[in-house]
């Protein structure tokens, strides 16, 4: 661990972690992590999914107790707060109560009381007003949170977090859902906070932002701190290097990519100039038989919205989608399935399967009409036969076909959700996060199965993911950045290149699109 240079000697340390180790079962989530943040500093905390970032945040906020190591707050020892009150946390997901006013949300965990033990509303509003005042937002004191703008809600969250007296503020993806102006305002306010001696730990996937607001950075990888440095003189690729690591950066995919499509083949899926509100702009892709194309981007870049629109789950405003030259009706999943599109939703628990339903039924629920007898009832033997094929193709481990899907392991649940997408024998597959939240061996098995089926059935496959490691079968991958396609990479690529590309940084590579419309930004 290198020390941060240029720090004035007089500055006190706000937060000090020494040798923090945390295990979950046999997994070492944090391995002797040490970190020091000075008072009034804005420190970026970066790491890829699974690097240990969330565990570290939980330790700092007091949600988790480490097995080894110490956590200290030297600068605030005299203020009499419990250690779990010293760090105020604002998470990406709102924790506000929408139907209460901004003031009540701010005092929610410590209502001022009068002598009768009832809420002292006057004091509550005064307290909220003085906190909001620092943000120039005292006029929203009595507004209902549900009526507020995204930035105002974020401000209310920060005020509530600081209302308990904490001097360290942890911001987790604070700009998610904010537009450019709101983001700038937030950054401006953050710098004012630091001038008052508030220390900020800043977590974001958007590395560009980090350079705008942070002075120093700590990067975790595999449960270890791999870099702590001043951001001065560093560039986005340097951070990506540290986050990905040399091994992963050098490693190419283990499953060979499918052959690039024959350019003479007519495309099966054609998406042209798809537009959804201000979320997705001008999204076009053509996929040919037996071709697997990736679509990568950061959370919130619009990639899942594009996937849902192709699947008929969401409506879109502009553009057209066609399968084998025939237009696909918009906003109707069943007609998209009939048109030949199979879809795996990005979150299997939210929409991939019905928990208390047999695997056999979950996998076949989209194709029941093909399994009926003349009087319109399902033929159980036909359903069983269809599922038997799916189950063996995906190697689903289950005690019986009747077993409830909720009883399976995560990997096998995901295979049931995938089987559902494949059940209609689609010409086009849109697979969002196909291996999210499954263990390593299941991941390998899923990726192989997808590649094998796409190759043998000559389907057109679009893999949509925020995880750079999910594109192994793809012969090319499209990069989505803030709602637009900014480029395309051809296999082979490294995770490092993808990790930089989703930051909007295509480097020297030839894949960047020359799009006159994007040059304005």
């Amino acid at each position, binding site marked *: 661990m290198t020390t941060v240079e240029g720090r004035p000697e007089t500055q006190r340390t706000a937060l000090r972690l020494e040798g923090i180790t945390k295990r979950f079962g046999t997994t070492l989530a944090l391995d002797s992590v040490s970190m020091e943040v000075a008072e009034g500093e804005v420190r970026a905390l970066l790491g890829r999914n699974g690097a240990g970032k969330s565990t570290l945040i939980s330790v700092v906020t007091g949600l988790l107790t480490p097995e080894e190591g110490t956590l200290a707050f030297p600068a605030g020892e005299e203020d009499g707060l419990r250690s779990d009150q010293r760090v105020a946390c604002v998470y990406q997901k709102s924790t506000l109560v929408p139907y209460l006013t901004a003031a009540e949300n701010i005092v929610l965990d410590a209502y001022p009381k009068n002598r009768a033990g009832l809420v002292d509303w006057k004091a509550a509003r005064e307290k909220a007003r003085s906190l909001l005042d620092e943000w120039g937002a005292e006029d929203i004191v009595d507004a209902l949170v549900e009526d507020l703008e995204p930035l105002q809600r974020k401000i209310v969250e920060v005020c509530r977090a600081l209302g308990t007296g904490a001097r360290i503020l942890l911001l987790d993806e604070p700009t998610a859902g904010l537009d450019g102006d709101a983001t700038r305002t937030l950054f401006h306010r953050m710098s004012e906070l630091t001038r008052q001696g508030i220390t900020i730990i800043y977590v974001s996937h958007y590395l560009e932002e980090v350079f705008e607001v942070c002075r120093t950075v700590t990067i975790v990888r595999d449960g270890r701190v791999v870099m702590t440095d001043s951001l001065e003189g560093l560039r986005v690729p340097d951070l990506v290097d540290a986050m990905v690591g040399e091994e992963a950066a050098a490693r190419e995919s283990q*499953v060979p990519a*499918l052959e690039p499509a024959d350019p003479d083949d007519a495309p099966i899926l054609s998406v042209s100039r798809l537009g959804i509100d201000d979320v997705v702009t001008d999204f076009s892709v053509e996929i040919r038989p037996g071709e697997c194309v990736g679509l990568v981007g950061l959370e919130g870049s619009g990639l899942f919205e594009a996937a849902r629109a192709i*699947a*008929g*789950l969401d409506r879109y405003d502009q553009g057209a989608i066609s399968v084998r030259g025939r237009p696909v009706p918009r906003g*109707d*999943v*069943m007609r*998209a*399935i009939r048109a030949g599109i199979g*879809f795996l*939703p990005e979150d299997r628990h*939210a*929409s*991939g*399967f*019905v*928990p*208390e*339903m047999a695997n056999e*039924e*979950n996998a076949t*629920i*989209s194709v*029941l*009409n093909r*399994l*009926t007898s003349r009087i*319109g*009832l*399902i033929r*159980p033997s036909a359903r069983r036969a269809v599922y038997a094929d799916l189950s063996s193709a995906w*190697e689903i*481990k*289950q*005690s*019986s076909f*009747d*077993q*409830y899907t909720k*009883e399976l*392991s995560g*990997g*096998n649940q995901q295979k049931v959700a995938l089987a*559902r997408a494949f059940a209609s024998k689609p010409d086009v597959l849109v697979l969002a996060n196909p291996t999210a939240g499954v*263990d390593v*061996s*299941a991941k*390998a*098995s899923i990726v*192989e*199965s997808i*590649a*094998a089926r796409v*190759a*043998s059935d000559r389907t057109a496959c679009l893999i949509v993911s925020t995880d750079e490691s999910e594109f192994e079968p793809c012969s090319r991958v499209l990069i989505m950045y803030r709602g637009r396609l900014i480029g395309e990479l051809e296999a082979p690529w490294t995770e490092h290149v993808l990790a930089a590309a989703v930051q909007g940084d295509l480097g020297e590579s030839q894949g960047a699109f020359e799009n006159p419309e994007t040059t304005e930004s």
Partner: protein
Amino acid sequence: MSYSALTKTVETVPAAPKPVSRWRQILRDLALIPVIVIVFIVGAVFVPNFATPNNIVSNILSVSAVLGVAVVAQSIVLIGGYFDLSAQSVIGLAPMLMVWLYTTDGGVGVVSNPWLAILSALVLGAIVGLVNGLLVGRLGMNAFIVTLAMLILLQGFTLGISGGQTFTDLPPAVAALGFANVLGIPVDVLILVLVVAIAAVFMRFAPTGRRIYAMGGNKEAARAAGINTLRMTIGLFIFSGVVAAFAGLMLSARIAAVTSSQGNNIIFTVFAAAVIGGISLDGGKGTIIGAATGVLLLGMIQNILVLSAVPSFWIDATYGAIILGALLIGSPQVRGMFSKLIPARMRR
């Protein structure tokens, strides 16, 4: 392509939870059968005239017929993830509208064709269902509060158009339903059996039936799988309204009259029977056969209470206590507590 040649990974399945096999499912459907048998034996031993064929068919089953039909419809709505409290008011208003349109004796008598009058009752049920369905499905309002408001509104209508009177001038077809029988079995009992059988097959084997389960079990997953949840929601409420109207006609036929308080309070018993029969209020769970056993159990208990010496003013309280008891017995937590009391070796 050489993917099959690549490493075949052996997955470590985490400690597998107990699988639910088809047989366990069937056993769960019939979980109430032992209780029904016990209640039957108790009734047969202690209550004179209980275990006679005539009592069983023309009292227990016939009295349960209206309840049973209503429970089947409500169960399907519950499986789909919704409530329809307004069913109770449709049971009252549909026959009231019919008789009000049909009879000149206290009604407006504008519809002299009895079949048209009957049709108007069913159409009313459909319209009420459509409104409920649009409010819940299209506008995303809460089914509980929408159908509660509808219940209050329609019950008010029933009282309003009837002026509190009782009508006995029913269309002949409805009147006949009340005393017709086939081979000595009352027609309403046959209707009940038929409705249960059709609904059970439909919910188990018809694609739409399975889609209703999927919607109630996870609406987003159902939508992503291509199920048109809006259309199905509206369809469920229309179905519920029409069946409730039909149940109202059956009830009027039974008592050979339409009263202004017809159907009042039946919704509580409908929910009690469905839940005792294993239908979950969370949606997606339970079966029609299970719900039917719930109806049978409540019908037997009510019959026993009527036949036995329980003072009539205390019947409701006793009935309520028994429903509460049945819910306790059916609760997995309570069963878990009891199974802890039994030594492990005896449980096998």
